[in-house]
């Protein structure tokens, strides 16, 4: 186990540039007036 750094979430976001983009996710909204989803708050629905 590492002594100085504890990894909590292991992401692989950069890989998804190749296999992502299916468009199945629900529409997001970046604005203040809709909570329908902001991109960073979404989960992938693939």
């Amino acid at each position, binding site marked *: 186990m590492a002594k100085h750094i504890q*990894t909590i979430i292991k992401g692989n976001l*950069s890989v998804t540039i190749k296999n992502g983009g299916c468009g199945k996710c629900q*529409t997001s909204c*970046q604005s203040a*007036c809709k909570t329908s989803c902001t991109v*960073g708050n979404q989960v992938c629905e693939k």
Partner: protein
Amino acid sequence: MLNLKNYHISKNIHIYEQGNLRIAYDVNSGSLHILDEKTFSLIGEMIDYQSNNETIDLNLVGNNLPDDEKLEVLEELEQLQRDKLLFSEEVLEQEPIYPSPPIIKAMCLHVAHDCNLKCRYCFAGTGSFGGCRELMSVETGIKAIDFLLMHSGSRPQCEVDFFGGEPLLNLTVVKELIAYGKMAAKKINKRIKFTLTTNAVLLDEQTTAYLEKEEVSVVLSLDGRKEVNDRMRPFYKDKGSYDTIVPNILRFTEKRPKTSPYAIGNYYYVRGTYTHYNTDFYRDVLHMADLGIKMISIEPVVASPENDFSLNQEDIEKVKESYDILGEKVLDYAQRDQEFSFFHFNAGLDDGPCLPKRLSGCGAGYEYIAVSPEGGIYPCHQFVGQEAYKLGSLHKPDSKPRTDIVDQFRKANVYAKQECRTCWARFSCSGGCHAANVAYSGELTKVYSLGCELQKKRLEVAYYLKIRQALKVGTNC
């Protein structure tokens, strides 16, 4: 050896302190780490050094650490770099690829440009969007749904949000359109997910039962404490709306105890707006949580600076402090079995959206459109009534969205915004809200800087909570 050749650390790693944790967020992988003091200080030194020098000489940083400890830290960083979890390779900038013609998957249907409240901060001009007060006809609504289904390509599920003004002022049409939409979608093996955004004034028992039966997701507006809500959300005769809407909201939310915090499936959210007058908005969130509401969102007002309720630069520190307090309260309430979800503290990281989605953002103008009561097509609900951004009309034969405007919105991705290209939050905020950017700067590709500051603070707390939830222990990690 840690490879730092051409590596811009502050662009690709964000380190910060939150609660009693020192956190590192690796932008390109979306990984989160807890750092000890020595590692935190070494990375901080590297970032400082890089702000004045092009390349980093590792012999010139971390010299306050004993040699053996510095070596240990660097070895751990190197291992994490090999594992692509920290100091991971920067994603090459590339434009998202878009289908042609555009696939529209969601529509905001403005069934009522009229409202029974006159909220002071309303971007819709208390419901009229700067035009006449009018309700959408069934015929226009049917044309809109047909337009959506026709332009949704191979996508099996589309979304329709009934919006206003106040959509319950036109409930008869809403009901007809839900019935029509379900039938028309089924005929071509598609499904429409319906959402309704309401101020809850007319949300009586019968309407609640109807929305339940038809599985309509609902976003309900409430600003929090009575005095806060009533200051900004009065009726036309200035009477506050709190006493009318809270019983309606609670009756509704009690019906959906298992709603998804990620707004998936059949959900509800109670959402509010905070302004200059309640920079201590965490109290409003807690007020709602104490009422028993589990899904809560409160967002900063977006308004011209001349308005007395606008947030200004002096408010920012108080607002940030409120987010800090709220983060701790989320944990406290969860420990007391009074768990609630604050929408903007949800963060999709390991299970979040893919990079193409994060680069392109909300899809306004090409995946998402809004339709006004008279059948005008706009990039999103916030652009309704702005002629310069009008994409077309449902009443013109063979109507298609104007390609020049579609292209403008497609090109306004993260990489088109200078400030975003080096920002650590770029893959989580996706360049912010187009409408807020235009309102602030007049351009789609210039960001609303105050909004950026708040977004970054929300993300910091969200990642902190993600870690705390993963650890599922007290504050000593």
